[in-house]
């Protein structure tokens, strides 16, 4: 398959990465090349083969239903690009 500039712009929009049309064209040709390389997998017969979603060690665990304050709010907010008092501040998005 081939990725045209419009398709790359759509992917960039989905990924929330701003790219110029020129960059989309360049990235498109690189992605095309990588996708061409991975196309070889389509020749592998996977009939009745289940997907592997991990190494099989994950187990469903629940923790005790009690308050655990592991992070100090001030420390967490200290990494905020902009804050107002105890809140994250972001640009106004609702007119």
């Amino acid at each position, binding site marked *: 398959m081939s*990725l045209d500039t419009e398709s*790359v712009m759509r*992917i*960039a929009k*989905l*990924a*929330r*990465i*701003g*790219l110029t049309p020129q960059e989309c064209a360049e*990235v498109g040709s*690189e*992605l095309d*090349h*990588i*996708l061409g*390389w*991975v196309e*070889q*997998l*389509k020749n*592998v017969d*996977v009939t009745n*083969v*289940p*997907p*592997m*979603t*991990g*190494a*099989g*060690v*994950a*187990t*469903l*665990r629940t*923790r005790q239903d009690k308050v655990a304050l*592991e*992070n*100090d709010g001030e*420390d*967490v907010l*200290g*990494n*905020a*690009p*902009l804050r107002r008092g105890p809140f*994250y501040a*972001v*640009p106004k*998005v609702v007119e």
Partner: protein
Amino acid sequence: MSRMTLTATRDALRAKKISALEVTDHFLAAAERLNPEINAYITLDPEGARAQAKASDARLAKGEALPLDGLPLAVKDLFCTKGVRTTAASAILKDFVPPYESTVTKNLLQDGAVFLGKANLDEFAMGSTNMTSHFGPVTNPWKRASSEQRLVPGGSSGGSAAAVAAGMALGATGTDTGGSIRQPAAFCGITGVKPSYGRCSRFGTIAFASSLDQAGPMAANLADCALLLQSMAGFDAHDSTSAQRDVPVYADALNRGVKGLRVGIPKEYRPDTLPAEIQALWDQGIAWLRDAGAHIVDVSLPHTQHGLPVYYIVALAEASSNLARYDGVRFGTRVAADTLDGLYEASRRAGFGEEVRRRILMGTHVLSSGYYDAYYLHAQKVRTLIQRDFDAVFANVDVLLTPTAPSAAFAQDEKPRDPVQVYLNDIFTVPASLAGLPALSLPTGLNKEGLPLGLQLIGRAFEEETMFAAGRVLEDAASFTHRPAHFAEGLS
């Protein structure tokens, strides 16, 4: 004198031949001297390291030494360290100071380790050259005999590997998603261990590809790696993929020998294009193990040829999902814009480097509507076939022996421009990662240009001890004592 090791330094500290503060000051001085050339550290933390060393000295004085008391380590800058900047080598996290400690580094600190600083890496661990760091490339401490060209240290744990190789730390933490501990260990002439998936907690380790990422130790030799892994490993309720298994005493396995051990040699790892010097090293490794009493068995992993494309679909899909959290709102770089989407797009554009952007776009594409089944789901099914290959082989052998990388370290300006060519560096390491198996790399020889080459051992899941035992036999036979061009002499 030649370099000290973790185990030898531990013994010297306990015998009070040297103090933890002296050890720390020595390695801080080495790091400060060599870092302008090597760039192995993004952040040095002399104050924190000296405070930890003084606490170690107090315990040592009372005869209450912890397992790692006073031992100076470099921490890959992918592990969150409370109060110490953690960047993942990315502009988007260049000022991030975690309010919490990763479980792996917490375990090491609880055992008395001293953290010298945060080691450079490929941005978000995406790369096998350490050329994608926002903080500049790491230079391999080794040089070719015939040239002054700067070589890559491998990646993504290139800073960790270079720091240990150059004598700027006695050990380091690394993470391995598709070979990011083993390949740089091979390029820098040190030892690196990727334990079984689930052996070390991923809590607090900045995620790249969650079903593959695994922390592991990097050090001068296997005994040092066994010492570090002992502290790093263990069940952690904070990580749902952490294995609820007892951690064996790895050091006890080192002298088991290989008599009667069955060592598999996968035929698919010997393509016609494999350089003669890599083939010769592999053959030498086979001979060493055979001479020590192992049975050599030819085996086949028929789906291994598909490992790399499967890896790149799975890893990039998971990366695109994991990196969605970097949106400039709660932490990290923010670029102002008129709309929320605009803020996301501008922040992520400014914060992510070229390789990370490429991988996020690729991952987003293979997960997007209409392509999910064709790419991601299909790749996960081929991944099952790769795992089944290993299951079948490990019914008949105890450990596999292969080369670690298809070449020695190459020059920074020789880095291929074609992403697919760069990805091929991981051809021998990726299959074990996909199957969640433990694997290690150790230095076993030099190429004709005087650069280190590594051999890889792959074990059954949660049987790291067998790898350590076989590795020790190779280590003894190889007697790798070569040192790189940039090397800070050990303590005398």
